[in-house]
Protein backbone atom coordinates (compact mmCIF):
# COMPACT_ATOMS: atom_id res chain seq x y z
CA UNK A 1 0.00 0.00 0.00
CA UNK A 2 1.33 3.42 -0.98
CA UNK A 3 0.41 6.07 1.62
CA UNK A 4 0.34 9.83 1.83
CA UNK A 5 -0.06 11.26 5.31
CA UNK A 6 -1.28 14.80 5.97
CA UNK A 7 -0.36 16.48 9.27
CA UNK A 8 -2.39 19.57 10.08
CA UNK A 9 -1.04 20.56 13.49
CA UNK A 10 2.25 21.57 15.04
CA UNK A 11 4.37 19.69 17.56
CA UNK A 12 3.18 19.38 21.17
CA UNK A 13 0.08 21.60 20.88
CA UNK A 14 -2.00 18.73 19.52
CA UNK A 15 -1.49 14.97 19.41
CA UNK A 16 -1.81 14.97 15.63
CA UNK A 17 1.92 14.92 14.88
CA UNK A 18 2.47 12.13 17.41
CA UNK A 19 -0.34 10.01 16.01
CA UNK A 20 0.86 10.60 12.46
CA UNK A 21 4.39 9.60 13.46
CA UNK A 22 3.33 6.35 15.16
CA UNK A 23 1.05 5.49 12.25
CA UNK A 24 3.79 6.18 9.71
CA UNK A 25 6.29 4.10 11.68
CA UNK A 26 3.82 1.20 11.96
CA UNK A 27 3.12 1.36 8.22
CA UNK A 28 6.85 1.20 7.46
CA UNK A 29 7.28 -1.74 9.85
CA UNK A 30 4.58 -3.57 7.91
CA UNK A 31 6.45 -2.99 4.69
CA UNK A 32 4.17 -0.33 3.21
CA UNK A 33 5.50 2.57 1.17
CA UNK A 34 5.19 6.12 2.45
CA UNK A 35 4.89 8.24 -0.69
CA UNK A 36 4.93 11.50 1.24
CA UNK A 37 4.21 13.10 4.60
CA UNK A 38 2.73 16.53 3.92
CA UNK A 39 2.66 19.16 6.66
CA UNK A 40 -0.07 21.81 6.34
CA UNK A 41 -1.56 24.58 8.50
CA UNK A 42 0.37 24.69 11.81
CA UNK A 43 1.78 21.29 10.84
CA UNK A 44 4.62 23.19 9.15
CA UNK A 45 5.95 23.91 12.64
CA UNK A 46 7.03 20.28 12.85
CA UNK A 47 9.87 21.32 10.56
CA UNK A 48 11.66 23.87 12.73
CA UNK A 49 15.24 23.06 13.67
CA UNK A 50 15.11 25.33 16.70
CA UNK A 51 13.06 23.42 19.26
CA UNK A 52 14.60 22.47 22.60
CA UNK A 53 12.07 20.15 24.17
CA UNK A 54 12.60 18.94 27.73
CA UNK A 55 15.04 16.03 28.02
CA UNK A 56 12.48 13.75 29.63
CA UNK A 57 9.99 13.97 26.80
CA UNK A 58 9.95 13.01 23.14
CA UNK A 59 11.68 15.22 20.60
CA UNK A 60 8.99 15.44 17.93
CA UNK A 61 10.99 17.30 15.29
CA UNK A 62 14.06 15.11 15.65
CA UNK A 63 11.90 12.00 15.59
CA UNK A 64 10.57 12.96 12.16
CA UNK A 65 14.06 13.88 10.92
CA UNK A 66 15.44 10.54 12.13
CA UNK A 67 12.58 8.54 10.60
CA UNK A 68 13.09 10.38 7.33
CA UNK A 69 16.81 9.63 7.34
CA UNK A 70 16.30 5.96 8.21
CA UNK A 71 13.63 5.33 5.58
CA UNK A 72 14.39 8.00 2.98
CA UNK A 73 11.01 9.64 3.59
CA UNK A 74 9.75 12.70 1.71
CA UNK A 75 8.67 15.17 4.41
CA UNK A 76 7.15 18.16 2.68
CA UNK A 77 6.21 21.45 4.29
CA UNK A 78 3.69 23.59 2.42
CA UNK A 79 5.37 26.79 1.22
CA UNK A 80 2.35 29.08 1.69
CA UNK A 81 1.68 27.81 5.21
CA UNK A 82 5.41 27.99 5.99
CA UNK A 83 5.68 31.58 4.83
CA UNK A 84 2.80 32.55 7.12
CA UNK A 85 4.36 30.83 10.10
CA UNK A 86 8.06 31.49 9.52
CA UNK A 87 9.57 28.16 8.55
CA UNK A 88 12.41 29.06 6.22
CA UNK A 89 14.95 27.21 4.11
CA UNK A 90 17.76 28.70 2.00
CA UNK A 91 15.56 29.21 -1.04
CA UNK A 92 12.81 30.91 0.94
CA UNK A 93 15.31 33.09 2.84
CA UNK A 94 16.74 34.34 -0.43
CA UNK A 95 13.36 34.82 -2.14
CA UNK A 96 11.79 36.67 0.77
CA UNK A 97 14.80 38.53 2.18
CA UNK A 98 15.03 36.68 5.49
CA UNK A 99 18.24 36.82 7.54
CA UNK A 100 18.06 33.23 8.79
CA UNK A 101 16.81 29.74 8.01
CA UNK A 102 15.32 27.32 10.50
CA UNK A 103 14.29 24.21 8.61
CA UNK A 104 15.04 20.88 10.26
CA UNK A 105 16.96 18.07 8.54
CA UNK A 106 14.89 15.78 6.38
CA UNK A 107 12.18 18.35 5.62
CA UNK A 108 11.78 20.31 2.39
CA UNK A 109 9.51 23.23 1.56
CA UNK A 110 7.35 22.90 -1.53
CA UNK A 111 3.95 23.74 -2.97
CA UNK A 112 0.45 22.43 -2.29
CA UNK A 113 0.74 20.54 -5.55
CA UNK A 114 2.81 18.02 -3.61
CA UNK A 115 -0.23 17.18 -1.47
CA UNK A 116 -2.43 16.84 -4.54
CA UNK A 117 0.18 14.68 -6.23
CA UNK A 118 0.34 12.56 -3.06
CA UNK A 119 -3.38 12.02 -3.33
CA UNK A 120 -3.15 11.07 -7.00
CA UNK A 121 -0.16 8.74 -6.68
CA UNK A 122 -1.01 7.03 -3.39
CA UNK A 123 -3.47 4.27 -2.60
CA UNK A 124 -4.57 5.99 0.59
CA UNK A 125 -4.48 9.45 2.16
CA UNK A 126 -4.69 9.62 5.97
CA UNK A 127 -5.24 12.99 7.63
CA UNK A 128 -4.15 13.81 11.19
CA UNK A 129 -5.35 17.08 12.68
CA UNK A 130 -7.24 18.76 15.46
Amino acid at each position, binding site marked *: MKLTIQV*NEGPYQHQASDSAYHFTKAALEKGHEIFRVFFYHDGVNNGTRLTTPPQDDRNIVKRWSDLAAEHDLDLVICVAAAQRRGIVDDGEAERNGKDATNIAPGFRISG*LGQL*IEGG*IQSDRLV*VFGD
Partner: protein
Amino acid sequence: MSEIKKFMYVNRRAPYGTIYAWESLEVVLIGAAFEQDVSLAFIDDGVYQLTKGQDTAGIEMKNFSPTYSALGDYEVNKIYVEKESLEERGLTLDDLQHLVWEDEDDDWAEKDSIRLVSRAEMADVLADQDILFNF
Protein backbone atom coordinates in the same frame (compact mmCIF):
# COMPACT_ATOMS: atom_id res chain seq x y z
CA MET B 1 -0.62 6.37 -16.80
CA SER B 2 -2.72 8.46 -14.47
CA GLU B 3 -6.35 7.73 -13.82
CA ILE B 4 -8.70 10.51 -12.79
CA LYS B 5 -9.60 10.26 -9.12
CA LYS B 6 -12.62 11.62 -7.31
CA PHE B 7 -11.20 14.23 -4.93
CA MET B 8 -13.43 15.66 -2.23
CA TYR B 9 -12.49 18.54 0.03
CA VAL B 10 -14.52 18.29 3.23
CA ASN B 11 -15.20 21.55 5.05
CA ARG B 12 -16.64 21.48 8.56
CA ARG B 13 -15.37 24.68 10.16
CA ALA B 14 -16.61 28.25 10.24
CA PRO B 15 -14.49 30.96 8.59
CA TYR B 16 -12.18 33.40 10.40
CA GLY B 17 -12.21 31.78 13.87
CA THR B 18 -9.54 29.46 12.50
CA ILE B 19 -7.54 29.37 9.27
CA TYR B 20 -8.80 25.99 8.09
CA ALA B 21 -11.51 27.39 5.80
CA TRP B 22 -9.13 29.64 3.90
CA GLU B 23 -6.20 27.23 3.71
CA SER B 24 -8.62 24.52 2.52
CA LEU B 25 -9.69 26.82 -0.31
CA GLU B 26 -6.03 27.36 -1.24
CA VAL B 27 -5.68 23.59 -1.74
CA VAL B 28 -8.80 23.57 -3.93
CA LEU B 29 -7.45 26.36 -6.14
CA ILE B 30 -4.04 24.71 -6.61
CA GLY B 31 -5.68 21.31 -7.00
CA ALA B 32 -7.88 22.56 -9.83
CA ALA B 33 -4.86 22.49 -12.14
CA PHE B 34 -4.47 18.74 -11.71
CA GLU B 35 -7.65 17.88 -13.65
CA GLN B 36 -9.11 15.44 -11.17
CA ASP B 37 -12.84 15.00 -10.54
CA VAL B 38 -13.24 17.60 -7.79
CA SER B 39 -16.10 18.15 -5.34
CA LEU B 40 -16.46 20.18 -2.20
CA ALA B 41 -18.57 19.24 0.81
CA PHE B 42 -19.84 21.72 3.39
CA ILE B 43 -21.00 19.98 6.55
CA ASP B 44 -21.61 21.20 10.12
CA ASP B 45 -20.07 24.67 10.66
CA GLY B 46 -18.55 24.46 7.17
CA VAL B 47 -21.82 25.82 5.78
CA TYR B 48 -21.02 29.17 7.41
CA GLN B 49 -18.14 29.60 4.94
CA LEU B 50 -20.61 30.16 2.12
CA THR B 51 -22.82 32.80 3.74
CA LYS B 52 -23.39 36.17 2.07
CA GLY B 53 -22.44 39.55 3.45
CA GLN B 54 -19.16 38.79 5.16
CA ASP B 55 -17.46 42.07 6.15
CA THR B 56 -14.09 41.58 7.79
CA ALA B 57 -13.03 45.22 8.06
CA GLY B 58 -13.49 45.30 11.81
CA ILE B 59 -11.36 42.22 12.47
CA GLU B 60 -8.79 43.28 9.88
CA MET B 61 -8.67 39.89 8.21
CA LYS B 62 -8.74 39.25 4.50
CA ASN B 63 -12.31 38.59 3.36
CA PHE B 64 -11.84 35.51 1.24
CA SER B 65 -15.53 34.80 0.65
CA PRO B 66 -15.43 36.20 -2.92
CA THR B 67 -13.13 33.31 -3.78
CA TYR B 68 -16.05 30.87 -3.63
CA SER B 69 -17.76 32.62 -6.52
CA ALA B 70 -14.58 32.18 -8.60
CA LEU B 71 -14.61 28.40 -8.18
CA GLY B 72 -16.78 27.98 -11.27
CA ASP B 73 -14.01 29.49 -13.39
CA TYR B 74 -11.66 26.82 -12.02
CA GLU B 75 -14.12 24.14 -13.15
CA VAL B 76 -14.94 23.36 -9.54
CA ASN B 77 -18.70 23.14 -9.79
CA LYS B 78 -19.85 20.27 -7.58
CA ILE B 79 -20.43 21.92 -4.24
CA TYR B 80 -22.42 19.75 -1.85
CA VAL B 81 -24.09 21.55 1.04
CA GLU B 82 -25.72 19.51 3.77
CA LYS B 83 -29.36 20.39 4.40
CA GLU B 84 -29.44 19.36 8.07
CA SER B 85 -26.29 21.40 8.77
CA LEU B 86 -28.07 24.48 7.40
CA GLU B 87 -31.29 23.80 9.28
CA GLU B 88 -29.53 23.18 12.60
CA ARG B 89 -28.01 26.63 12.22
CA GLY B 90 -31.19 28.38 11.21
CA LEU B 91 -29.95 28.92 7.66
CA THR B 92 -31.48 28.39 4.26
CA LEU B 93 -30.00 28.34 0.76
CA ASP B 94 -30.94 32.04 0.53
CA ASP B 95 -28.37 32.85 3.20
CA LEU B 96 -25.63 31.42 1.02
CA GLN B 97 -23.86 32.95 -1.95
CA HIS B 98 -25.36 31.94 -5.26
CA LEU B 99 -22.50 29.98 -6.78
CA VAL B 100 -22.63 29.27 -10.49
CA TRP B 101 -20.57 27.87 -13.32
CA GLU B 102 -20.79 28.16 -17.09
CA ASP B 103 -21.31 24.91 -18.96
CA GLU B 104 -19.38 25.14 -22.22
CA ASP B 105 -21.10 21.98 -23.41
CA ASP B 106 -24.44 23.71 -23.08
CA ASP B 107 -23.78 26.99 -24.86
CA TRP B 108 -22.14 28.45 -21.73
CA ALA B 109 -25.43 28.24 -19.85
CA GLU B 110 -25.11 29.40 -16.26
CA LYS B 111 -25.86 26.60 -13.80
CA ASP B 112 -25.96 26.26 -10.04
CA SER B 113 -22.84 24.82 -8.44
CA ILE B 114 -24.45 24.21 -5.06
CA ARG B 115 -26.16 20.85 -4.64
CA LEU B 116 -28.28 20.74 -1.49
CA VAL B 117 -28.22 17.20 -0.11
CA SER B 118 -29.57 15.49 2.98
CA ARG B 119 -27.23 13.94 5.53
CA ALA B 120 -28.04 10.48 4.17
CA GLU B 121 -27.32 11.63 0.62
CA MET B 122 -24.08 13.25 1.80
CA ALA B 123 -23.03 9.87 3.26
CA ASP B 124 -23.51 8.40 -0.23
CA VAL B 125 -21.55 11.25 -1.82
CA LEU B 126 -18.66 10.73 0.61
CA ALA B 127 -18.72 6.97 -0.01
CA ASP B 128 -18.46 7.61 -3.75
CA GLN B 129 -15.15 9.51 -3.52
CA ASP B 130 -11.62 8.16 -3.94
CA ILE B 131 -9.91 10.65 -1.62
CA LEU B 132 -11.21 12.81 1.21
CA PHE B 133 -9.21 15.85 2.32
CA ASN B 134 -9.98 17.28 5.75
CA PHE B 135 -8.70 20.44 7.34
